C-alpha cells in the first residue's frame, strides 16, 4: 500500500506534499500514529467503538487543519491533543461524565504506597502471550484515574519523552513526573502481587503435567 517514494520522506516533507496537493500522502503520514491516537481516545471514552469513532474524527480534523500545524511542535503531540479535544468534546456533549473529574485531580493529594514484597523474581515478557496476563495488565491500567492513565500511556506505553508528553497533554513537566510516578506506583501495588500469583500458579500447574 505504501508508495516507496513516500515512505522515505520525513514528516515535514509529507506535510508539505499534502498541503501542496498530494493529499494521498496523508495515509502514510498518520500510519505510525494510529495506535497512540486510539489509546488516548480509549482512555477517555472507555469503550472500543466510541474510541474508534473519536480516533477517526481526530484524524479527519487533523487533515482539515493541517495548514495550521506549526512546524515548531511535533506532529505526534499535535495529533494527540486534537484527539483528546475531540474526546472531551464528545463526552461533554453526551454529558456522561462531569468535566471537572476528567482533568482535575490535585497533584498534591493522594500518597501511593507500593506493594511490599520480600523478593521479586523477574517475570519474562513471554507471559504476555497469555490472554489472562494481558487482561490483568489492561485491567490495572484501566483502573488508574484518567489523568494518570494518560501520562502513563504516553510515557511508558507509547514511549514519548517527558517534554512531548507535557506538550500533548498541555500540562507542565513537573505534573508529568508526579502523575507518572503515581501511575507506576499504583500499577506496582495492583499488579506485582497479581502477577506473582498468576505466574507461580501456572508454574505449579505446569509441573503437574510435566
Amino acid at each position, binding site marked *: 500500500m505504501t508508495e516507496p517514494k513516500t515512505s522515505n520522506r520525513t514528516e515535514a516533507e509529507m506535510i508539505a506534499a499534502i498541503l501542496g496537493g498530494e493529499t494521498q500522502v496523508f*495515509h502514510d503520514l498518520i500510519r505510525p500514529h494510529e*495506535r497512540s491516537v486510539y489509546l488516548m481516545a480509549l482512555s477517555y471514552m472507555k469503550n472500543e467503538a466510541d474510541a474508534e469513532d473519536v480516533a477517526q474524527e481526530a484524524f479527519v480534523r487533523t487533515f482539515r487543519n493541517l495548514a495550521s500545524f506549526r512546524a515548531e511542535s511535533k506532529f505526534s503531540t499535535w495529533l494527540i491533543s486534537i484527539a483528546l479535544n475531540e474526546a472531551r468534546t464528545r463526552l461533554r456533549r453526551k454529558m456522561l461524565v462531569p468535566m471537572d473529574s476528567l482533568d482535575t485531580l490535585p497533584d498534591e493529594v493522594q500518597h501511593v504506597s507500593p506493594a511490599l514484597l520480600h523478593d521479586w523474581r523477574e517475570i519474562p515478557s513471554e507471559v504476555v502471550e497469555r490472554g489472562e496476563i494481558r487482561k490483568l495488565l489492561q485491567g490495572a491500567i484501566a483502573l488508574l484515574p484518567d489523568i494518570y492513565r494518560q501520562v502513563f500511556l504516553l510515557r511508558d506505553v507509547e514511549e514519548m519523552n517527558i517534554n512531548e508528553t507535557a506538550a500533548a497533554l498541555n500540562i507542565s513537566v513537573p505534573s508529568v513526573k508526579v502523575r507518572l510516578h503515581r501511575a507506576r506506583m499504583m500499577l506496582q501495588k495492583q499488579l506485582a502481587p497479581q502477577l506473582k500469583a498468576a505466574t507461580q500458579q501456572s508454574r505449579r500447574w505446569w509441573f503437574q503435567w510435566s
Partner: protein
Amino acid sequence: MVIDCKHVWNFISDYIDGALTEEARMDVQKHLEHCEICSAILDSTRNVIILTADNRVFELPVGFSERLHARIDLELREYRGEGAKQTP
C-alpha cells in the same frame, strides 16, 4: 544522607528514568544495597513497566486501520470535490 524506605519510594520513578541528581541517586542506591523490600519494589516496578510496554498488551481492534483509511479516503475525495460522485 541516610534515607528511609518511604523516602526512597518517592524517588523510584525518577530513579528508573535516570532523572535524579547524582546525590539523590547515590542515597537511593546506598539504601537499595541493604534494603530487600525497596529492592523488590524497584525490580517489580521496572518489571511492570516492561510488561505493560509490550506491544501485545494493547492492540488495535481488528479492522481498525482499514476502516480508518477508508474514512480518510472519503474525506480526501470530498476535499477534491468528488464527494457527490461517491454517494450511492
